[in-house]
């Protein structure tokens, strides 16, 4: 038998000549493939359907439906206000503690949702990954974007709270979408790392839950950053180090920036040093996307 099998039946013409024939070359994954975001763009309809699926599936067969989305951060904010605002007497500047903490919980929730869903998404979509081809990046992308609907409802609630407490937004509101985008990117950047790694090492997935709650307490979500800055209880020599590390957390930038966008000059806003964390965020995102694209061809074999 010759090594190349040939089938010599005359082929019937199926393709019209004027149509370009898509050509795909399948090769071992050794070569450094570029991010190839163009391919992800071609699959944008699938991204849309996955997002839609994630949103719809989440609230199917729930009695209260979208009310949950508002109820959960409201309840959390109430609890935080009681413990930190009333019992511990922590400051929240000109903003009433519940509104202050609600804004933090809201943007943190968007980040945490993006992070946790994109970390878990590959395992959750195992049946798809082993049965059909599409750029795998679509899955964590859809997972992080699907949190946006919840978030928008939360923003509506925040607007109502601000109206009730008489806090008028300023021109800084224009910057809000930028910080929302940053929150999603932050969640996605860590999420793609975790999802790509957890396909192979399940323990990484377990770490994600822990990471999120740990991280939240290092970020001024439930309390104001005033508590950390110039705190006399911190030993003098340790204070500058603590402050620097504190501000280099990308989520510090996101939360403080979001509050500034919502409340304007009433809050301090992101510190100059915190903008440095943006570089860190982009680095994690860039390497995460590369690592993801690099290993995605193997997902079907190991997931």
């Amino acid at each position, binding site marked *: *038998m010759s*090594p*190349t*099998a*040939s*089938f010599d*039946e005359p*082929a*019937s*013409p*199926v*393709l019209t*000549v004027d149509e370009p*024939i*898509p*050509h*795909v*070359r*399948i*090769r*071992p*994954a*050794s*070569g*450094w493939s570029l991010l190839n975001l163009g391919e992800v763009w071609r699959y944008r*309809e*699938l991204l849309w*359907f*996955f997002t*839609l*699926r994630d949103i*719809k*599936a989440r609230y*199917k*067969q729930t009695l209260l439906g979208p009310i949950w989305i508002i109820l959960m951060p409201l309840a959390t904010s109430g609890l935080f206000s009681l413990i930190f605002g009333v019992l511990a007497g922590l400051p929240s500047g000109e903003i009433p503690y519940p509104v202050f903490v609600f804004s933090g919980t809201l943007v943190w929730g968007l980040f945490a949702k993006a992070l946790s869903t994109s970390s878990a998404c590959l395992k959750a*979509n195992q*049946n*798809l*990954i*082993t*049965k*059909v*081809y*599409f750029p795998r990046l679509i899955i964590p992308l859809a997972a992080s974007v699907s949190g946006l609907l919840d978030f928008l409802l939360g923003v509506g609630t925040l607007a109502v709270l601000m109206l009730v407490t008489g806090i008028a937004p300023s021109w800084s509101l224009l910057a809000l979408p930028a910080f929302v985008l940053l929150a999603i990117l932050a969640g996605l950047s860590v999420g793609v790392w975790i999802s790509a*790694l957890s396909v*192979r*090492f399940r323990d990484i997935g377990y770490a994600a839950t822990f990471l999120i709650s740990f991280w939240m307490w290092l970020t001024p979500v439930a309390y104001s950053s005033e508590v950390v800055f110039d705190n006399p209880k911190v030993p003098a020599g340790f204070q500058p180090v603590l402050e620097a590390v504190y501000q280099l957390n990308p989520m510090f930038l996101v939360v403080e920036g979001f509050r500034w966008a919502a409340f304007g000059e009433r809050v301090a806003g992101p510190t100059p040093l915190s903008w440095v964390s943006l570089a860190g965020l982009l680095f994690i995102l860039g*390497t995460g996307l*590369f*690592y993801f694209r*690099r*290993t995605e*061809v*193997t997902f*079907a*074999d*190991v997931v």
Partner: protein
Amino acid sequence: MSDIAIRVENLGKRYEIGELVTVRDLPRVARKVATAPFRKLFGRSSAISGNGTPDGQAHDGLPSADAVDEDSPRHFWALRDINFEVKHGEVLGIIGRNGAGKSTLLKVLSRITSPTTGSADVFGRVASLLEVGTGFHPDLTGRENVYLNGSILGMTRREIAAQFDEIVAFAGVEKFIDTPVKRYSSGMRVRLGFAVAAHLDPEILIVDEVLAVGDAGFQSKCLGKMGEVAQGGRTVLFVSHNLAMVETLCPKGLLLDNGSIRAAGDITTALNAYSSLFGHTRATGLADRTDRTGDGPIRIIKIDYQDEYDAPIAAARLGHPLRIRMHYRSSHVPVANVWFTLNFFDNHNRLVFKCNNELASSLFQVSASAGQFVCDIPKLPLTPGVYHLNFHCKVNGMKSDNVERAAELMVESGDYFGTGRTFNDQRGGICVDHRWACQESVA
């Protein structure tokens, strides 16, 4: 324009076997993960091993820095040196035993997994159908799932919308289209899944064994649709264990065995080569067969046949008693609750019937380390032809021994009905006891 739809050159796929990762790998893995994103960026070619073939990163994406040798026992080649071409409009059936590499080949060609060596060029829009209803979400309605599934299979929203009514009608689920899919019967779900897939309009269609689902009526509907697709000038790659179906649908065949191409060309060539594959297996004694699964105490080492006078026979006869003796060895005694099934397959690999000790009598209690399980068929219903048997043996519900195509059974014609006439139809089927009467109405 070239008339080639798929060209496969030196394609190989290697899998790692054994546990993928344990704690001991932690330092090595941590080092690789930390450097993975940059390795290629700076042109360090650790992904290329000494002899120039791409090294084993096919699995982990973490190229083994210590250039694993090609034939290390931790690796297994699911495909090796695969070369073939498919022209536009050809319908190719891919056949082979379990584990021959058929599904792996389809997965590589559908880009679900990447090859370890070689390349494949695919010209045209591809739709691969390795499962019916891929990605159905139980909480979403039929309508929502049609869009989702269609989109997953590569249809645009407009294409789905244009064919939506047709899809729903084909599946016959009009009434339930706005009901969550989890309330569907499994048959309805399968029909809806196939209906979406059937309305794909790719230039190249890759199908894996998905037709073996649904009830008989729907299966024939699917077959009809497949035939239509095949005749419609589309390029089709079709994997199936159902040789009759492959023979009907595919003029061309490709036989895979142990990851390599054994035969290619006309479907008859491939099918003949497939049969001879088993001739080869038969030469190996059952005791020496290594392609068995199960690790219990009971092992079957020989199967032979006897007639009603306990005389050994080479061929059984239709309508006559047949005694099948499975000689066993047991690694320890006593062994309680031995469950035993014999499956009879015809030469198209269709299950004809099965014999099971629990159903027909009772589980065996084995107290000697060697002996025979005896299955008596008082009146063999198999029509003339060649059949093969596989057996499953379980001990306390745990698989003890299982061999596919463990033995072949030749059946000659006989007088099944005791009428003095022998059965001469070569088209297969089985005989069943029955009676005829002609009842005349009394005026």
